């Protein structure tokens, strides 16, 4: 039987506010253990939370960017469960009246656009971190680091509209891009500022009901999301094919073994005993304020991509790549501002710039070759001052030394030689030294000219203008 895959994602993202959601402690990642703490986030007896309204602003911005409706009246609730990284043994979260509902985002997979509906976006506090001595199973004790306790989180819940692991990955990438565009989160999965749980079930193709789902946890990277879901599709298919039933349970992704394993069954699921948080007042948002935030939203990935295609004639693929992160798209726009030709800038960005960023594990915002400097380089190329090959050498030098292109070209004497007189002598020497290649060319083997051009370039240390070389060679033979 053919099955349809049904996936819904629950994404947690840490907001990059200066201070925590209910106290004034810093949210800075990587501080010494238990230094970003106070009586409130330690949950000491007698403390009370005070809501950081910056979190509300970030949540509203996110809701709007995800095409949600912002609820004019929302509230916090307590989610009660015992865990040693949770100092109060309840998490202040939102239950039945979240800040934003009924949104969507569009993803593109294999050239097809799919709309994934978003059920809700809600605000909550993060928990602390347990540090085990040695392995988690054999450790004699655990230590708790409360630095992360009370860092603001958004939980973004999708409808079960995702149909494959690839779509799940595309959804996450798009979501990450949007969150970065609107500047609410760093979305660093390795630092835990973006986390994903997935609900996945199968049903016979064409059916409209929902099959029994499993909930996947511990998906700590985009790759883990994709691999974990792919594994679950296979596992559940196998269960169903053998006439079995999928059990509703929570499963954890084991990255090392590449499998999912049962964590707890439905019967062992927590009863969170939600009730309205009595220490906080309901959140009432002013529609004028919402509109103000909406007006200030930056251009989002879809709009930006359309602009690159329509106004700058980039291919859909190039535009998609460039707009997949805000920093990359900003870099691109800055090259345009500095006078670059769009197509040339796109080629450089997706070629040399991306290559060097990857090699040196560098973020585009820290790129040593600024958009302005890159444009200077491309202009030297356009004017014929340097050859394309030399340009790459110059770029490398710019990257490592930080010098600008013109200086490097001048210092190293890399100006392209287009003067026919200067090139003819070399060409004649090459023709004399390679009679076989000349004969091949004259016998109709057009490819032989490539070798001869290469020889000329080699002797001029790459500085000869290849077009001129080509022209003169043909004339001489």
């Amino acid at each position, binding site marked *: 039987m053919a099955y349809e895959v049904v996936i819904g994602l629950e994404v947690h993202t840490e907001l990059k506010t200066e201070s925590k959601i209910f106290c004034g402690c810093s949210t800075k990642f990587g501080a010494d253990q238990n230094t970003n703490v106070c*009586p409130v986030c*330690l*949950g*000491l*007896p*007698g*403390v*009370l*939370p*005070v*809501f950081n309204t910056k979190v509300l602003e970030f949540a509203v911005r996110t809701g709007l960017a995800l095409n949600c409706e912002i609820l004019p009246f929302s509230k916090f609730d*307590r989610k*009660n469960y*015992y865990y*040693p990284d949770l*100092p*109060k*043994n*309840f998490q202040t979260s939102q239950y039945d009246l979240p800040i934003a509902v009924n949104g969507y985002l569009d993803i593109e997979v294999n050239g097809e656009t799919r709309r994934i509906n978003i059920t809700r976006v809600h605000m909550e506090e993060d928990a602390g971190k347990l540090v085990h001595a040695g392995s988690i199973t054999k450790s004699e004790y*655990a230590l*708790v680091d409360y630095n992360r306790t009370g860092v603001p989180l958004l939980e973004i819940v999708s409808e079960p509209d995702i149909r494959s692991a690839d779509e799940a990955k595309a959804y996450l990438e798009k979501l990450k891009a949007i969150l970065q565009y609107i500047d609410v989160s760093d979305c660093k999965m390795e630092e835990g500022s973006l986390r994903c749980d997935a609900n996945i079930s199968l049903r016979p193709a064409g059916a409209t009901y929902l099959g029994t789902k499993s909930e996947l946890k511990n998906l700590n990277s985009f790759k883990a999301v994709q691999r974990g879901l792919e594994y679950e599709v296979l596992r559940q298919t196998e269960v169903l094919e053998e006439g079995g039933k999928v059990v509703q349970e929570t499963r954890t992704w084991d990255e090392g073994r590449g499998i999912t394993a049962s964590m707890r069954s439905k019967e062992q699921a927590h*009863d969170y*005993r*939600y*009730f309205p948080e*009595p*220490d*906080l*007042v309901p959140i009432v948002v002013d529609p004028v304020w919402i509109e103000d935030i909406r007006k200030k939203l930056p251009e989002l990935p879809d709009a930006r991509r359309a602009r690159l295609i329509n106004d700058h004639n980039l291919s859909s693929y190039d535009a998609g790549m460039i707009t997949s992160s805000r920093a990359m798209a900003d870099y691109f726009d800055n090259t345009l501002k500095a006078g670059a030709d769009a197509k040339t800038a796109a080629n450089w960005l997706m070629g040399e710039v991306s290559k060097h960023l990857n090699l040196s594990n560098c973020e585009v915002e820290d790129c040593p070759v600024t958009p302005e400097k890159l444009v200077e380089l491309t202009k030297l190329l356009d004017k014929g001052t340097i050859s394309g090959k030399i340009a790459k050498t110059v770029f490398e030098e710019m990257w490592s030394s930080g010098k600008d292109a013109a200086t490097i070209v001048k210092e190293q004497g890399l100006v392209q030689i287009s003067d026919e007189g200067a090139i003819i002598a070399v060409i004649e020497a090459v023709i004399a030294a390679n009679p076989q290649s000349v004969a091949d060319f004259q016998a109709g083997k057009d490819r032989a000219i490539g070798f001869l051009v290469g020889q000329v370039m080699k002797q001029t240390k790459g500085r000869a203008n290849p077009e001129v070389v080509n022209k003169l060679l043909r004339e001489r033979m």
Partner: protein
Amino acid sequence: MELYKLSAHELRKKLQAKEVSAVEVAEAVYNRVDAVEDTVQAYISLTREAALAEARRVDEKIKTGQAILPLAGIPGALKDNICVKGTRTTCGSKILANYVPPYDATVTRKLAEQDTVIIGKANLDEFAMGSSTENSAFKVSRNPWDTDTVPGGSSGGSAAAVAAAEAVWALGSDTGGSIRLPAAFCGVVGLKPTYGRVSRYGLVAYASSLDQIGPITRDVTDCALVMNAIAGYDPLDSTSINAPTPDYTKALVPDIRGLKIGLPKEYFVAGMDPEVERAVYAAIEQLKALGAEYKEVSMPHTEYALATYYMVATAEASSNLARYVGVGFGYRGEGSDIIAMSKKSRTEGFGEEVRRRIMLGNYALSSGYYDAYYLKALKVRTLIKRDFDKAFEDVDVLAAPIAPTTAFKIGEKVDDPLAMYLQDVCTVPVNLAGVPAISLPCGFKDHMPIGLQIIGKPLGEETILRAAYAFEQNNDYYKRLAPLGRA
């Protein structure tokens, strides 16, 4: 007259006139504590050194001619669920027996700014859960009017300390009557302010939507003075009311002509002691004689208040008390893993009544029961609030008893939680509605004090203080001192 017998406003005059020093006042109170504390058992801990140091600072200010604030140098007691930085705050529980907060409650800070002198931390029912102070893990406080009876609860230590002149004033907390009941039983004045009028920051939570800190004093004037010191908006408490704080002493005019008093007939419950009922009616007649008008009003949802209270309060408590697992602070039991350790910490650290209320609250919130219990209780709570709104359309204040009886014997109700809960029947509706109410002495039955309750509109503290002051000044109950013996 001995200094410890004087009220705060009397002591202030003497301090300002340099007739006595703050150190002399503090020492007089400590001498009194030394003499009677064995009998009364009002305190969990005394803070003698800090108190005398503070008194010396006040004397220095007086000596150098600096102005002193109204409560400067006046010794008081804090209920031991109010955090004082560096001072043990136990909540009357084994689980916090050695807990020392690293921060001050807002009221603690405000009192320190007044240069008040804190004598010690007063006994209470564990986590403020109880009506007799018998649920304290440390001691049973005694009623200074008859040491075989309870002082009421849960602020029993605070009320007993004031009644026995072991403190000039005290702070209590009131979740369902915990200031007013002990004030009534001990023949002193107790005010439960409007919810949000006094910051809860640093008050160890029992039931967050009901808890409120308030004064327990010898007379109404002192009540107004303490309110002036502690009331006001606090950005650290999101449920705090952002409204200007009046000078409550301005309300102390013995003139209640034209005041409209409502008598909620549902508060005069079946089984009420007829002498208590008679005393309350007599008090109302007296208020009428002073120029007030009164009429009977109906508050039809009163009978559901007690059940509603025990749903809401226990649900919130089950969550508020979840943090006591022996991980970051408090008592830690032995266990081979985290779950065993937490269980042991809670089983050994909490007393029976606290465990009972946690169980009740968890049950009320659990899936499948939430709608029938907790949600329904919230709806009834709204109806109870509406009863008050409606009554206050016609009247300025409501007058009612505090409790169906006078103080009962120690041990009399410990094995009967329901009988104990019934003590709160006249006080819990006030907390559910969030309105202010005062308790003040209005008579005696067999030498035991009877309390009159005057309930006001939201932020109507001034009106109830005025009514209470007028009544007080036309009687002499406040002048009587508890005998500290057996009846």
